[in-house]
């Protein structure tokens, strides 16, 4: 529906204040179709707040302009309450009003067997549940996917599968993606653009240009130097 290179999202001078605290300030960026953006930053930097503002779930100042008609899929970090409900995978998909593809086909696309539809959500591991959430977001055939920490809570080794799955989705569906993470590997594996966030935009651009040692130091501060120290 949109041509490559055309902005699907333009954010200008975004400011979010929660309970009197400025959580995000002076954030401006434009996302073009087909780009994979990583929003990188330490804990408490406002990454999830930015995603929630983009979804329209938080009040903000400044402007967030999605291109008209763009369909957005959202993959949340975790859904603690869902295990309180006896819900089969098929029923979870039925909660969605605008399912455009077959559920079995979607489950296969994220590497789960078609018989997964009949099983209870609570019976899946966290890694499998992550895949169900991705399939769920894909069901409305979105143009843009927003991910909140796709590798959080996934065991080591499982991360590789998540990177591979996202790369494959990018390839086969020409999706535009915004991925919130504190996982540097995600940036190098997938991203075409990176936004370093710590209340303000610390750096922005293609990963190799943006993620200079100085910028990483500014972004993570001591966190990165401690990390490197361990490996000496």
């Amino acid at each position, binding site marked *: 529906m949109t041509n490559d290179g055309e902005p699907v999202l333009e954010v200008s001078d975004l400011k979010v204040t929660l309970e009197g605290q400025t959580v995000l300030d002076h954030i401006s960026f434009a996302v073009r179709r087909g780009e994979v953006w990583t929003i990188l930053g330490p804990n408490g930097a406002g990454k999830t707040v930015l995603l929630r503002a983009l979804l329209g779930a938080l009040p903000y100042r400044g402007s967030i302009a999605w291109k008209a008609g763009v369909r957005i899929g959202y993959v*949340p970090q975790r*859904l603690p*309450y869902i295990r309180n409900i006896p819900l089969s995978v098929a029923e979870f998909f039925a*909660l969605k009003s605008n399912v455009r593809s077959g559920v079995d086909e979607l489950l296969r696309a994220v590497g789960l067997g078609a018989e997964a539809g009949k099983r209870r959500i609570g019976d899946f591991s966290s890694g499998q549940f992550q895949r169900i959430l991705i399939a769920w977001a894909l069901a409305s055939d979105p143009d843009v996917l*927003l991910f909140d920490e796709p590798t959080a809570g996934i065991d080591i080794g499982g991360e590789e599968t998540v990177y591979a799955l996202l790369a494959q989705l990018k390839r086969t569906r020409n999706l535009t993606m915004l991925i919130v993470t504190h996982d540097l590997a995600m940036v190098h594996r997938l991203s075409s653009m990176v936004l370093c966030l710590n209340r303000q935009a610390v750096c922005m651009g293609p990963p190799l240009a943006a993620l200079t040692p100085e910028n990483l130091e500014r972004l993570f501060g001591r966190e990165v130097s401690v990390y490197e120290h361990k490996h000496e």
Partner: protein
Amino acid sequence: MESLLLSLVAGMSIGGAAAYLGTLMLSRRMALVAGPLGHLTLPGIALALVWGLDVSVGAFPFVIAGVVAIWWLETRTKLPMEALTALVFSSGVAVAFLLLPMEQAETALVGDISRAGLYGTALSVVASLAIVVTLRRAYSKLVLANISEDLATAEGIAVRRYNLLYLFLIAVIVALGVKMVGGLLTAALVAIPAAAARNVARNLEQYTLGATAIGVASAVLGVVLAHVTGFPAGPLIILIGAATFLLTLPFAR
């Protein structure tokens, strides 16, 4: 005989609707909210008994006032919801005991569905049906908002509007429930059938159907048992629900 029939019809409607709504409240860990709201209705029940009105009619303004008061206080202070709930509902109970004629205390505390009458029963049936129909239409959206408000927002659901609808339905079911089980036991009316059904349900359909069936069956058995034994129906209905829960325990998933 006529009063037994009316009690059965009113009990089935209220029990079923409360259990259906309970499936949502349990998944949001809100099942106990119906408790304080029930206590809060006691002054309204007291007034209704003094003036000879239907108990639900007396209870309804008080439960609405309670919901609004808790919501308003929450926007004004940083205190947690449960502290505010405790403040508001204990004030309600205190006021009730100033107003309540002591000989009517049992009716107010544990309910008396045999007093329902034709008008009261009709009111219960219509209001319960309205709750069930509204819930069926909004159920998917409410479940999604229960799971994650962000996810629901991303799906284009007006979460605040649905939360308001949800609170309103809770208020109505509490006002109906006090007629059947009194101001003390309303939490059990929504929580127990849903908890028992969740023990055995493999999916959402079994969960909602199971809870509603248990709610209806507990009410029927309770009313009949009350008719035979002379005990009040409210506590019997709750105890039958609790016994059903215990029966489902060995199958808990």
